[in-house]
């Protein structure tokens, strides 16, 4: 039963990614050219509402549907990994025009060459795992 819930949330998310054009290479290019408000509007409005949701959950100690406590763990403090990792991610995001959610959405839409991007992303994740201890974090 719970499986269906996760699946439905994913379907909803995939539809939003494709229909909002956040999964379009052109929209990502346009964002990095500062030529359109579209992507900034999407991220900004998601964020504005997201901040409100999380504040409400914290303030009113809202529980999960199962009645469990909701914990938000703080991310480890550091600069290197977030900055360096972020820059590498940004280079790839602009080149492939897809981040890890939309690349799967595009697969569903039938753009088969996105498989090359997904294979690359798996390889990149694996390379990180191999090099992890040698990188500054």
């Amino acid at each position, binding site marked *: 039963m*719970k499986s269906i*819930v*996760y*699946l439905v*949330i994913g*379907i*909803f*998310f995939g539809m939003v*990614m*494709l*229909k*909002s054009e956040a999964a379009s290479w*052109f*929209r990502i290019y*346009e*964002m*990095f*050219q500062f*030529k*359109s408000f579209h992507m900034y*509007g*999407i991220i*900004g*409005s*998601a*964020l*504005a509402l*997201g901040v409100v*949701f999380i504040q409400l959950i914290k303030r009113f100690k809202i529980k999960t*549907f*199962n009645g469990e406590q909701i914990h938000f763990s703080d991310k480890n*403090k550091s600069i290197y990994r977030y*900055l360096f*990792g972020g820059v*590498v*991610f*940004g280079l*790839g*995001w*602009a*080149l492939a*025009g*897809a*981040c*890890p959610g939309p*690349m799967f959405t595009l697969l*569903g*839409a039938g*753009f088969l*060459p996105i498989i*090359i991007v*997904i294979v*690359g*992303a*798996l390889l*990149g994740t*694996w*390379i*990180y*795992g191999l090099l992890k201890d040698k990188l500054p974090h």
Partner: protein
Amino acid sequence: MDLINQPLPWYVAGPLIAITMLLLILVGKNFGMSSNLRTICTALGANKTCDFFCFDWKGQRWNLLVVFGAIIGGGIAFNYMSGGNAPEISQEIINELKTLGFESAGNSYLPVELFGKGVFSSVKGIFILLIGGILVGFGARYAGGCTSGHAISGLSNLQLPSLIAVIGFFIGGLAMVHLIFPLIF
């Protein structure tokens, strides 16, 4: 009825993404897509190569279901909700892309030059997509999250590390589009 065939405006899409995050929190999980890449690596046997992949990947089954849903959702939106229409990007951007060799700008959802079937026989095309993917996968794990984990979940929880990561995303993206694109396209 015509409404489902229209693209989603930003002020609808953004809140729907926030709702996706909220739903995942309310079922006791969190919104972060790139962890699935690590899970899939482990499921494919990467745990035999290094400790980073030694974890109980079946505990991440829920997130694999979310991503499987995202595949189905993409298929539904593309085939039944006119999801494949060309985004309305500005004429200025279209002209700019045409000078870079993207003749399909303004006519398709994704550039045919990179995502059309022909790319499978283009060494340069395969190379670009593969490198792009490697950078995304490597960077997301190095930074500990991607657009969903940092830009949406992390920033919504006012996490400074996520702000640093998002600034990194933009430094990388701007460098790619402004400095590297003129060299490769």
